[in-house]
């Protein structure tokens, strides 16, 4: 057994242990901290699977932004009064749930062990497609060129989620702003972070977006980092969550899918098919679409975390 194999097994056991703790922790806060740690460990597993793009997305959105969503909502629930005592499910439910989960996990494990060898793959087709787009990162090429329909519809799912979150607002708050993310009187250290880390973070985000064409990175990961930076600014109270009826916010939210659809329709005229990019222009078009997707993701994630409007009009 080589060192690498031992490391893999250790990593796997660690991931499972932290996952057990997110389920078993007594308080929600401990569970969320464990979940964020779990996301980080999972990022290392993704690196071991040669998937740095996924590693970054998992760390940024799967663990970082989801973590702050749960911490913030947990704090809001707490500040609105102690959560009512949870009714503990009975032993029989525990046992049957355990049996069901064990069954599901075993079935899935069996499928994984029975995967055909060599397994079917779309990599050769992706390689061909990559040559046509002029990109260097196959994952970006798949996202924006080859399977662009999926990515566009996924952007629309994000929009639907925003509509859903906003629509649970009380009528009297409609058109107002969500509750502030941070506390009044932010501390000095927070302001220091806001003033030094955020510019650096924006730089890193733009860098990750730019290298995404040829190396791991791209609009999703960069958008998540920019979203995190915007949320730090809002936690430090240097800016407030925008009112839901502000025009610029809505333009930012729809720009990604809108540009995507326009580019797709233009493909009918210029290259004869929906989402066909004309020869030689594929790379600039892809980067153009990605730039607006970046904007949409960076705007959508904080809006989803901030939640529905709770104040009738901004201060």
């Amino acid at each position, binding site marked *: 057994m080589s060192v690498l194999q031992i*490391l893999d097994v250790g990593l796997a056991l660690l991931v499972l242990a932290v996952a057990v703790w997110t389920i078993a922790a007594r308080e929600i806060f401990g569970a969320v*901290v464990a979940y964020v740690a779990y996301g980080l460990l999972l990022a290392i597993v993704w690196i071991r699977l040669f998937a740095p793009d996924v590693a970054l997305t998992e760390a940024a959105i799967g663990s970082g932004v989801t973590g*702050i969503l749960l911490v913030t909502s947990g704090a809001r629930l707490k500040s609105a009064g102690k959560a009512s005592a949870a009714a503990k499910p009975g032993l029989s439910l525990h046992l049957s749930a355990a049996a069901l989960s064990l069954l599901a996990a075993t079935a899935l494990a069996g499928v994984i062990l029975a995967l055909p060898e060599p397994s079917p793959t779309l990599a050769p087709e992706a390689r061909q497609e990559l040559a046509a787009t002029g990109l260097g990162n196959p994952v970006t090429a798949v996202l924006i060129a080859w399977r662009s329909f999926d990515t566009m519809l996924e952007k629309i799912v994000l929009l639907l989620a925003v509509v859903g979150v906003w629509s649970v607002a009380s009528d009297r708050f409609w058109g107002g702003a969500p509750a502030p993310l941070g506390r009044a009187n932010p501390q000095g250290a927070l302001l220091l972070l806001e003033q030094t880390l955020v510019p650096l973070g924006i730089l890193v985000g733009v860098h990750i977006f730019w290298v995404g064409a040829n*190396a791991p990175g791209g609009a999703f990961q960069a958008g998540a980092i920019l979203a995190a930076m915007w949320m730090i600014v809002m936690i430090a109270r240097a800016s407030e969550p925008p009112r839901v009826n502000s025009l610029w916010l809505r333009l930012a939210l729809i720009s990604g899918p809108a540009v995507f659809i326009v580019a797709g329709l233009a493909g009918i005229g210029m290259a004869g098919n929906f989402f066909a990019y004309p020869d030689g222009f594929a790379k600039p078009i892809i980067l153009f679409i990605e730039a607006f997707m970046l904007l949409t993701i960076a705007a959508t994630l904080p809006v989803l975390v901030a939640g529905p409007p709770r104040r009738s009009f901004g201060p």
Partner: protein
Amino acid sequence: MNDFLLFAAGFILLTVAAGLFRVLRGPGDADRMMAAQLLGTGGIASLLLIASATTVAGVEDVALGLALLAAFASVAFVNGVATDDEQPQEAGGK
């Protein structure tokens, strides 16, 4: 050399994971945050070591993103923990 890098990565991961025991025990939320922060830094260190040993391209950017998000997570945690006392008793500060 590669084996040494992997060994170091495993060792760091193991020690900071032992530190994760603080997440379990607490007692306070601050201790939990500290353990998560230590895991963040150790995770970045072992990520860099593993990447250097197995030559996965572009891992520096992933680690850069992780470093940013570690800071973001601690900010969010402190903010989430401290929301229950809203009164401005720290207005002056030091």
